[in-house]
């Protein structure tokens, strides 16, 4: 439907609609304004002034230096970028294979296998905390990079498989038959023919699952403890005392996910609908 159709004709209601939106917008960006005013102040000035006052002298660099020297924020970011990227990549590769098998290969009891994998997202994630925590302690994966990577890969699989399976179901069998006549086996069909076709779905899955792992707090605080291993949200959650530096850290760690979502938003208007798990 064109936007015009629902547009109101009267000038008065047009003004009303836009003013209501402007008022709401103010509330929505208020926390950002609050953070931007805060990061300019020194710890002392922050405690002495009102939040709506501008900083007498800008302490942005000092606050940044505090983050670099006295916190593990940057290390945490590197950890999470790594966990998120590797986790999403492994999840997508395994999910491609599983989705392909479920949509196109001769598998008995398809629905059973599908639900078995998909069940990972149906249950509340709290259910997995104790068993994985205890198992990780026993096999030496607790507080390790490999453990975090492995867990994030696993938790991304159900959703990735779901999206990719939907895509593969929509691909016509004729394309595959043609390739098969040319002598391609299943493996080649998956990676040479279906993979290039699925690129848009794959990038949506990669980006959303990366963002999920990057933004995760619960698994991070449960499965890690040392600062070199902790993912970013677990690291920043214990940031205390120096509020201006903490606010600056909030802004810095949000840069990857904000960039990523604005990219998603611009390129995949429909894809964004899948972002919740």
């Amino acid at each position, binding site marked *: 439907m064109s*936007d015009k*159709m*629902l547009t*109101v004709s009267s000038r008065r209601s*047009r003004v009303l609609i*836009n003013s209501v*939106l402007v008022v709401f917008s103010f*509330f*929505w960006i*208020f*926390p*950002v304004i*609050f*953070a931007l005013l*805060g990061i300019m102040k020194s710890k002392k000035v*922050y*405690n002495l002034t009102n*939040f709506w006052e501008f900083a007498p002298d800008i302490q942005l660099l000092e606050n940044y230096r505090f983050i670099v020297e006295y916190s593990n924020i940057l290390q945490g970011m590197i950890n999470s970028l790594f966990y998120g990227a590797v986790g999403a990549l492994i999840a997508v590769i*395994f999910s491609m*294979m*599983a989705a*392909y*098998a479920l949509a196109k*290969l*001769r*598998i008995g009891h398809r629905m059973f296998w599908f639900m*078995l*994998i998909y*069940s990972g997202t*149906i*249950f*509340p994630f*709290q*259910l*997995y*905390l*104790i*068993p*994985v925590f205890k198992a990780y302690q026993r096999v030496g994966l607790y507080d390790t990079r490999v453990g975090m990577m492995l*867990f994030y890969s*696993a*938790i991304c*699989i159900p959703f990735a498989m779901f999206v990719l399976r939907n895509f593969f179901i929509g691909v016509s069998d004729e394309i595959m038959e043609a390739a098969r006549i040319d002598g391609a086996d299943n493996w080649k069909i998956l990676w040479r023919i279906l993979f290039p076709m699925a690129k848009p779905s794959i990038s949506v899955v990669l980006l959303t699952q990366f963002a999920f792992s990057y933004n995760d*707090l*619960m698994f991070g*605080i449960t499965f890690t403890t040392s600062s070199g291993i902790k993912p970013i949200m677990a690291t*920043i*959650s214990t940031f205390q005392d120096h*509020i201006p530096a*903490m*606010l600056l850290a*909030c802004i810095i*760690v*949000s840069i990857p996910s*904000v960039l*990523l*979502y604005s990219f998603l*938003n611009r390129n995949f*208007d429909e894809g964004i609908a899948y972002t*919740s798990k």
Partner: protein
Amino acid sequence: MNKHTTFLLDISRKRDYLYLLPAVVLVVGFFVTSIGYTVVLSFFSWDGVSEKVFIGVQNYTDIFNDNNFWISVANTVYWVVFSLLLNLVLPLVLAILIVQSVNSPLFKNIFYFPATLSGTVGGLIMVAMLSTYGIPQLFGLVGFEKMVRDWLSVPVVNTFVMIFMQTWRGIGVNLLLFIAGLRHLDRAPIEAAQIEGASRGWLYMKVIFPALSSTTKVVLLMSLVNSFKVFDIIWIMTKGGPYRSSETLALSMYIESFVRNNYGVGASVAILLTCIILIAAYFNLRNTFKSE
């Protein structure tokens, strides 16, 4: 078909299952076995160090007799009811306004923006904003001195404050869904109604809202399942406190297990939470797979 080809076919069929193998191994290894383990653990008393002791359903009876559990249940109900309401009504109203506004991409981005932040970051900014240094001071300026205090330390108030904060962060996806829904409406019935001189209220109630019902259903069920699982924002803003006054079931489970080392009790809370979510998830799944 002779024996030889059946054999080959058998092999290639088995090979098809190999494609499922890595995904199935990870999901079963991490999640399916975890579900079984947690169910079993909920019948044991365990501090995580000494031997597990089988105590039958005592964890469950203890929980039901624990006042904190019922506070946690009440908070969970508040969360579900109010965040469901806010996450449905607010994005719908905003979407209707935004498609008629002067600059819909701008407004859309403003309201979507907080959804790109993590719950942790959102929570940390909110805590600073709601400290006595922040917003409560504004109320002091206009004469409400009583409100200049730490809102997050007042029972029940803290839960509602957090529900609002989660709404701030949470409406983004629903808003996009509603905007997309409004843009893809079938124009014929709307034009027909307009030609017949239908009032705006009638147009929305009788034509537009019914046409949006499938989007509404998706939004409703998704928000319902998510509202039970909220963890990050509560953990950051109050850790369930003060005095366990703002815990929800998702928090209680975590605190019993990893703060108080009552793994058996934590497991039973997790099982109860799961039972509730599965009921909600059932409707969600039925809706998702209606077409298959």
